[in-house]
């Protein structure tokens, strides 16, 4: 699993992490003060409010919370961001605090840009167009999977274009993420399983990306160890705060890993089947992961096999001296076993996906940006369709 002479990379991970049970209320004010801020707008969604996850946090902030913007849907859009930015501007916010999952966090990231730069969000579609730090943003995630709390990518739907746009800005990475495992205690088993497998996919795909690098690999390997050990515990005992915390840290580390090294074929296929058949992202990642691992190993490249052998060690199913090919295949088997253990769907057909859907999704997958980073070169849609068929 060595790196070749041409290795050249940039590792970026500026977000401060504050971890601990109760940290979302105990540490927030001091983190806000440390950033020199005193007027927070909280960005969240109705589900979080109904679940009572934001109430204590908002109460803790007292007068430092100048408003709550809770109008964030599951897939956010430019119109939502514009409304949120107008609200925050009207309230005189000097910091945004997001409480929620990926959509809430992405909305908050984009609000920060509009608060600092003004104008239209569409002007910032692209990579690294900003030239200065943006409005401070503290993230308090309520799920453990997306890794959005440490990435500097935001995805929002542009109604005018009829597509999602990507805004990739290192100046807009959240300043701090407060990981409070108490906030994930109420996650139901299937959501725990699917968000956990999203994180596992981030970790494994970061290691098998063309842009893999040693620091991201280190993050990914430890994330794999923690997820492998503690995701099943979270499913068995959702109230186990220790296990919840391990999974939360793993998701954040996997976020750093893929934020730097990118993702590959699993994400290309998950995005596509999600678009065609509305399969939730985490679930489609979990189902596709072992099939794509098997496909990548099928290339027979010693480097690829060595990486999967290292993954097998992190999964606890292989030792350092084991024959690499067998170890790599043990990793695939272990992911299948993990899916069974956590009650995760194993086949796309369990989600109502049809042959017609996978034919459409294969077309989309081959044009998905993530596929270019996959360690095995995917030659065409027939190869992708074959993988889908195995997972159907």
């Amino acid at each position, binding site marked *: 699993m060595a790196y070749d002479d041409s290795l*050249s*990379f*940039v590792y*970026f991970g500026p977000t401060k992490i504050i971890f601990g049970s109760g940290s979302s209320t105990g540490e927030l004010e001091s983190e806000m003060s440390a950033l020199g801020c005193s007027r927070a707008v909280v960005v969240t969604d109705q589900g979080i409010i109904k679940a009572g996850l934001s109430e204590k946090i908002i109460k803790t902030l007292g007068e430092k919370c100048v408003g709550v913007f809770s109008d964030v849907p599951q897939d956010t859009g430019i119109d939502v961001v514009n409304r949120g930015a107008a609200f925050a501007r009207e309230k005189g916010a000097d910091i945004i605090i997001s409480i929620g999952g990926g959509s809430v966090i992405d909305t908050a990231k984009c609000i920060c840009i509009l608060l600092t730069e003004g104008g239209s969000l569409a002007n910032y*579609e*692209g*990579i*690294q*167009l900003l030239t200065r730090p943006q409005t401070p943003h503290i993230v308090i995630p309520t799920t453990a999977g997306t890794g959005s709390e440490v990435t500097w990518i935001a995805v929002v739907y542009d109604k005018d274009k009829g*597509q*999602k*746009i*990507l805004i*990739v800005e*290192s100046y807009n990475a959240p300043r701090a993420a407060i990981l409070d495992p108490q906030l994930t205690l109420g996650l139901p088993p299937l959501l725990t399983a699917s968000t956990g497998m999203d994180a596992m996919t981030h970790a494994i795909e970061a290691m098998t990306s063309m*842009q893999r690098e040693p620091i991201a690999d280190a993050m990914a390997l430890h994330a794999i160890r923690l997820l492998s050990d503690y995701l099943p515990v979270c499913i068995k005992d959702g109230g186990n705060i220790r296990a919840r915390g391990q999974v939360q840290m793993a998701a954040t580390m996997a976020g750093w890993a893929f934020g730097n090294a*990118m993702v590959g074929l699993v994400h290309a296929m998950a995005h596509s089947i999600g678009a065609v058949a509305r399969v939730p992202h985490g679930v489609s990642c979990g189902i596709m992961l072992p099939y794509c691992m098997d496909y990548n190993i099928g290339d027979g490249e010693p480097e690829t096999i060595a990486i999967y052998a290292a993954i097998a060690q992190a999964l606890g199913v292989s030792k350092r001296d084991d024959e690499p090919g067998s170890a790599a295949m043990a990793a695939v088997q272990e992911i299948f076993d993990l899916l069974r253990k956590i009650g995760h769907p194993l086949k796309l057909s369990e989600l109502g996906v049809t042959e017609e859907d996978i034919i459409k999704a294969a077309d989309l997958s081959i*044009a*998905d*940006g993530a*596929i*270019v980073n996959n360690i095995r070169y995917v030659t065409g849609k027939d190869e992708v369709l074959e993988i889908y068929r195995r997972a159907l």
Partner: protein
Amino acid sequence: MATHKAFTQEWLDAWKQKIAGSQEYKEIAKEWEGSVGLICNADPSKNIPNPVYLFTDYWHGDVRDFLVCDETKVQTAKFIMTGDYARWKQVAKKELDATKALMQGKLKLKGDLTYVVRNVKTINKVIDLLTEVQTVWPDDV
């Protein structure tokens, strides 16, 4: 083989000719629509006293305008890529992968990133063809 000074109209014409003459490019780029503006930031220490603006236009395997232009024209491009001279030179000599340069923030991109990434083969081919143009770089003079 003729050599051309980088960032001149003659250099762009030679590059355009290479692309237009490539059957492989025509096949790879059949899905690509739209212009790409390239901005090289000024670097007087490398003999780039002012920013350089280039406008290159591609359409379903064909090549259209390839122009040294001004800032106003470059801003009309569908995609705009900006970088320091040293980065552009590395990319043009294939010492730095263009996608990696974008992801690592070594080049900036204004426009639809997903479109660019999924058409990465087109971009790589265009750069491959640039390496076939005998180039004299401003700091090598």
